[in-house]
């Protein structure tokens, strides 16, 4: 039944409303949240299984057929990302009660959390440009609330920047949609793609494409537009940082991936060529940022930017290997970034500081944390048996077959520096003499460790079980390279 496509979206939405009623009873709220999140995960798995066996599910809401009504498209790419979102949400929700203060929890944290998940899921599933905007706003509204939750001075300061930049880019988004609607007369993505193809993407359409790229690039924190990202992401609670780092920028990059593989594909010498440049610069500036700081949270936060660079590099090259590399890297990066944010949250909690200079010798007290960070750093940098390796290998193979030597070298070099930036936390924070003057009394509870272990296990599986995962990813890349499949499945002509 086509209503399957709405389930991953409506379950968190209704759950968010239900936990708003039980808000003052924290224990009930926690129990319900875990229950609903697990239901959401199970449903997402089931829908993903259905999509991968029987093909895309198109839901025409209200029974209005494709170009006239709102449609939700659960194809392989979007449902894979929805499933990943639900996995991260599950990890976050088991981590949250151990990390949040009671005051934050009773101020509707769980409602905002569910609204964030609903917004992200909706943005992945929608087949309509204006609804994409609406779901962006749903997730942004929830993120505004989550970023200030707690009301510290630093949170208030960073949230002002965050809200202003996002309001500005949302305004540009509406402008871009208005221009596109004026030019092609529809907002259904499949029909836009069809009409853009008919006129072979004339000048004004390429301008709109660049404007849309500017909007999504701001949301996704690409090279010239990333300056707002690192600091707002580290001020809220670690679990909020993990949700932001794993989901929000990835919605932007998914939108770029969708729009520039479906609609604006006729003038690749302008758009996709620029992507490669932007990708290279994002990698360079991202790792420079990550190397420049001694704040462990900020190091992880800066590491989001080169990862986005890697993903868009695959889109810029636009062949089968590079695109499957992009998708592999996207899924890998969502999981490992959330694991790393949760992990540095625990490290900063036990060490009582997030400044590397004040740490040292943590491995004598917390060996498990140390080795988890070690594995996470290897996964992030792409050391062979782990998941980062497969994605990067595919990307580099794609780049070399397209004779893009410069970007290959930049990618390899920045991988090295990414490894160094995270290993710096391990070397300076965990190695060293046992400092007898400091007493470490805080023990991370099992509830803080298990979600991280779970996420890392999935990451390791993505690397070791690549034989099992890769065919599905390659299927998605083939699907993206042929937009006609999407258009036909939506418009059914």
């Amino acid at each position, binding site marked *: 039944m*086509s*209503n399957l496509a*709405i389930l991953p979206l409506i379950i968190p*939405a209704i759950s968010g409303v239900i936990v708003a009623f039980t808000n003052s009873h924290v224990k009930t709220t926690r129990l319900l949240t875990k229950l609903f999140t697990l239901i959401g995960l199970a449903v997402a798995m089931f829908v993903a299984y259905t999509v991968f066996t029987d093909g895309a599910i198109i839901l025409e809401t*209200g029974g209005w057929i494709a170009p006239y009504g709102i449609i939700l498209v659960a194809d392989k790419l979007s449902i894979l990302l929805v499933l990943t979102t639900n996995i991260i949400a599950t990890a976050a929700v088991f981590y949250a009660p151990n990390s949040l203060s009671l005051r934050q929890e009773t101020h509707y944290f769980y409602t905002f959390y569910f609204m964030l998940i609903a917004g992200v899921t909706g943005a992945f599933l929608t087949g309509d440009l204006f609804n994409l905007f609406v779901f962006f706003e749903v997730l942004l509204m929830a993120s505004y609330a989550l970023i200030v939750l707690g009301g510290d001075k630093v949170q208030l300061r960073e949230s002002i920047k965050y809200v202003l930049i996002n309001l500005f880019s949302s305004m540009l988004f509406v402008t871009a949609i208005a221009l596109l609607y004026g030019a092609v007369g529809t907002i259904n993505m499949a029909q836009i793609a069809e009409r853009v193809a008919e006129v072979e993407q004339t000048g004004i359409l390429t301008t709109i494409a660049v404007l849309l790229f500017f909007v999504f690039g701001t949301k996704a924190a690409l090279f010239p537009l990333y300056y707002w990202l690192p600091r707002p992401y580290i001020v809220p609670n670690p679990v909020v940082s993990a949700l932001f780092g794993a989901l929000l920028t990835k919605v932007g990059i998914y939108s770029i991936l969708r729009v520039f593989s479906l609609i604006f594909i006729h003038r690749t010498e302008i758009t996709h060529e620029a992507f490669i440049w932007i990708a290279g610069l994002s990698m360079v500036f991202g790792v420079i940022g990550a190397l420049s700081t001694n704040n462990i949270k900020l190091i992880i936060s800066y590491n989001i930017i080169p990862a986005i660079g890697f993903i868009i590099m695959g889109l810029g090259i636009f062949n089968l290997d590079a695109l499957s590399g992009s998708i592999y890297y996207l899924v890998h990066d969502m999981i490992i970034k959330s694991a790393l944010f949760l992990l540095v949250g625990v490290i900063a909690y036990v060490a009582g500081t997030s400044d590397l200079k004040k740490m040292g010798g943590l491995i004598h007290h917390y060996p498990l944390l140390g080795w988890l960070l070690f594995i996470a750093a290897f996964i992030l940098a792409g050391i062979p048996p782990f998941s980062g390796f497969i994605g990067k290998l595919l990307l580099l193979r794609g780049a070399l077959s397209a004779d893009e030597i410069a970007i290959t070298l930049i990618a390899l070099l920045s991988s090295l520096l990414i490894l160094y930036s995270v290993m710096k936390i391990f070397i300076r924070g965990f190695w060293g003499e046992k400092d007898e003057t400091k007493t470490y009394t805080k023990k991370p509870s099992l509830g803080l460790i298990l979600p991280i272990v779970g996420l890392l296990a999935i990451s390791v599986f993505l690397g070791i079980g690549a034989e099992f995962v890769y065919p599905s990813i390659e299927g998605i890349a083939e699907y993206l390279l042929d937009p006609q499949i999407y258009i036909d499945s939506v418009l059914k002509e």
Partner: protein
Amino acid sequence: MSKPNNLILQTATALIAFILLGFSVYLFFAGHNSPGGGFIGGLVTAAAVVLLYMAYGIDFVNKILPINFRALISVGLLVAFLTGVGSFLFDVPFLSHTFGYFEFPIFGEVELATAMLFDLGVYLTVVGVTVTIIINIANDTKAEV
């Protein structure tokens, strides 16, 4: 502290608030065939409630209108979502709506559509949000609205 005498404001409010409430109900029901609907209806209702707060003060209005406006937001959202989910029961796509003609004692034959239930959700949410925002900003003391 001497209380200011707002006899004129309070008397006028007693009249105007009810006209506003009636107008908001009219707007809410008119939405299907003429300008109006849940959003504007909710705003006009919220305007009436805020007028009451202005004229009579927070404590008094809380006594005569014992409504938790924050819970009203959740109720409204739930109504709207459940209207969409209701379509699952009839095995039609999400958010499908239907309508029928019913005979009522005074109004005669009336067209009733399930879209009105969705609008009711919008109406409740808008009232809840607007009043919550205004009361929380206007009230310096710890608001438990």
